[in-house]
């Protein structure tokens, strides 16, 4: 199950959003993002990885569920906001769905810009909004049973700091 690649209309900042079961190759995705361009001076890469423990409880696996259609659209809305707020030259967001073991990749955010500040800030902005607003849900399997992961207030606070006064 792989969603089609959604490419932006003609803009200076190509945006790629994918939701897929397959793993991603960070080096390959960076190469695709930068291509033969020489105007990009900074690429920030964030990868979210399945942790092996949560509050000292051992995690056996995580299952990621999403809302097909809305998930892509919601990420797109935030990517568009990021490109409007920062001078970006490229954005890639890949979110995996399915069942994952500790150590496996879950999410990748790449932001490219001429200078590092915009790339760092946009990547953080995208991740903060992804965690609180993109329709994905994690179910955790541990020695004590299986249960849905609860949303964290600290994630809401992280997203709220990007709201303009």
């Amino acid at each position: 199950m792989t969603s089609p690649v959604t490419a932006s209309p003609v803009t200076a900042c190509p945006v790629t959003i994918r939701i897929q079961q397959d793993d991603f190759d960070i080096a390959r995705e960076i190469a695709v993002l930068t291509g033969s361009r020489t105007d990009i001076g900074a690429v920030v890469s964030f990868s979210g990885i399945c942790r092996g423990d949560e509050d000292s409880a051992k995690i056996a696996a995580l299952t990621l569920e999403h809302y097909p259609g809305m998930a892509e659209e919601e990420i797109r809305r935030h990517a568009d906001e990021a490109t409007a707020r920062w001078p970006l030259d490229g954005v890639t967001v890949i979110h995996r769905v399915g069942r994952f073991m500790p150590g496996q990749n879950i999410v990748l955010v790449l932001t490219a810009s001429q200078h590092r500040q915009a790339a760092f800030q946009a990547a953080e902005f995208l991740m903060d909004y992804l965690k609180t607003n993109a329709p994905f849900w994690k179910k955790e399997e541990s020695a004590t049973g299986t249960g849905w992961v609860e949303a964290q207030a600290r994630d809401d606070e992280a997203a709220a700091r990007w709201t303009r006064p």
Partner: protein
Amino acid sequence: MKVKYFAWVRERVGKAEETIEPPATVRTVEELIAWLSGQSEAYAYAFEKPKVIRTAIDHTHVKPDAAIAGAREIAFFPPMTGG
């Protein structure tokens, strides 16, 4: 209108999606949640804490007082935990 459920809301309701026809007196998201809660034990359990439930109309997040008129697809789900 089509209604979709995700994560533990889906598990509690017992289905992923369905088509419903609420009466015309049900105008907002919170009124729809109240109406669904009255339909069966399963819905009452899924919506027992209505303030926790998040709602999207046609793939866009909305607040509980949002009007449901003209909605093609309404989704109910818990707070999101992706990333």
